[in-house]
């Protein structure tokens, strides 16, 4: 009886170990897939900015440093989204958000920009992209939370400690800031309502 029990335990340990390892690998892959979903939307945001600047420049008779600042922040965000760490990407996106914020503030005070109809279309696309970023972030953070929780559970914690599984970081950006930009760019605020 005791011998049978020992044999069962000897068989069970590697099986449980393998199942735990597989579950952790699957969880880590879900985190990576979630991150990939975020970067797709971030790239879409990056692609919209040159058009936004071009639409504004077309309407302007003179250059402005705000455009340069926005394009520089966008260039840095584009560079890092492909090769940077998640912390670097988060920081670059925060800078890009700040630059967009400055641009919006300037646009509100500049009738030549607000009168350009292309900005209305770009605003709609930007708003949709930011909704997608927010949703992708929620899904990614859900994956991260589930994965991190698993890392703390038995028997996964033993496998994780010996298998090099590290905790994943949440993607935390100031969503209120994203929303504010979207609202600031709204048609009514920019004077792009009917008849304009």
């Amino acid at each position, binding site marked *: 009886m005791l011998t049978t029990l020992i044999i069962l335990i000897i068989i069970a340990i590697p099986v449980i170990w393998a199942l735990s390892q597989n579950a952790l690998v699957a969880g880590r892959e879900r985190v990576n897939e*979630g991150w*990939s979903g975020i970067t797709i939307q971030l790239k879409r945001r990056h692609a919209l900015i040159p058009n936004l600047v071009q639409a504004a420049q077309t309407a302007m008779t003179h250059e402005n440093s705000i455009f340069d600042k926005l394009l520089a922040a966008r260039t840095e965000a584009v560079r890092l989204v492909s090769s940077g760490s998640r912390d670097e990407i988060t920081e670059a996106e925060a800078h890009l958000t700040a630059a967009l914020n400055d641009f919006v503030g300037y646009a509100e005070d500049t009738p030549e920009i607000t009168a350009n109809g292309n900005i209305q279309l770009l605003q709609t696309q930007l708003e949709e992209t930011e*909704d*997608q970023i927010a*949703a992708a972030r929620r*899904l*990614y953070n859900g*994956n991260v939370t*589930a*994965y991190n929780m698993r890392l703390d559970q038995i028997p996964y914690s033993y496998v994780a400690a010996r298998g090099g599984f590290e905790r994943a970081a949440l993607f935390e950006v100031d969503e209120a800031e994203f929303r504010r930009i979207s609202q600031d760019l709204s048609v009514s605020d920019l004077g792009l309502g009917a008849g304009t």
Partner: protein
Amino acid sequence: MSISVWDPITGQANATAPTEAQVTTHPLAGLVRMLTLPMLIVCLTGFGIAVFSETWMFHGIAAATVGFVFILLGSKLTGEEDNRRTRIMNAAHAGGHLGGTPLPKPKIAQLAGRIKSLLVLRAGASIPLVLEHEIWGTTRGDIPFWMGLSLAQSQAFFGGPKANVRAGPDTTHGEMAMFVVAYQLNRDTGIHAEIMPEFTTAKGPFDLDVKTESAQFNDRFNIRLREEDGQAVGKGVGSVALLRVLTPATQVTLLELSDTYSARVIVDRDVVFFGGYRNFQTTDHAALQRLLSQAVEDFATAATSFKTYAE
């Protein structure tokens, strides 16, 4: 006056504004409702006694018969069934929409053929959806919709806290609304897919449906792609097209609808069907109309998110 409206089954239908009917209250209706649960207990207890006790067998049979007859005839004799149908018609006033007419039997059969998996009982969807009346209209965003609807009186605790919504003074009972809402998209999504509650047994190697990037969404929903004739397609075929339509925003919206209405979805190219139920803890038909209108708008948000990406 009859107006031509979009219909997911017949293509076009003629609908008129619903007429509001008066719910008549039988003097014994309240008493019957109050005694239903005790009589059910009497019926079951009598059945148990009849089966297990030789001495009291005839008493048990008598008790079970009385309880059974009461439950069977109580609501008929007091007009409760007629009132239930009247309440459905009154609920069809939701948002000033059209219709509210009883669903014809041939159309019910057509629905069962086209969206069978939305209606049937399955793991993860604990209530089969029964549809008795239909409503047509447009959402606030001008999307044509059709709704099949039924109501059943329910106890307040039924469905658990997530499925309950209070909409007025405290009542011990309310209305369990079961519905299917279909929306016409102005673009072809290019896919036939079913997004149903996930089977509880779908774990590890038994979890074989299409996966998105969200663990939470995958745990909640079972995603299957279908051919034009309804046959399931092979693993991997068409998954990319489906995942392009299931954007992050769409997934988040469907998760929220799953929390609120136990939602399930069929995407049929340019038509999206949502099925769901919710226990509305009210007997006030004006409140019920508002809640059903809100359900139409809630599901329209998800329908629009499919459409937005297709555009």
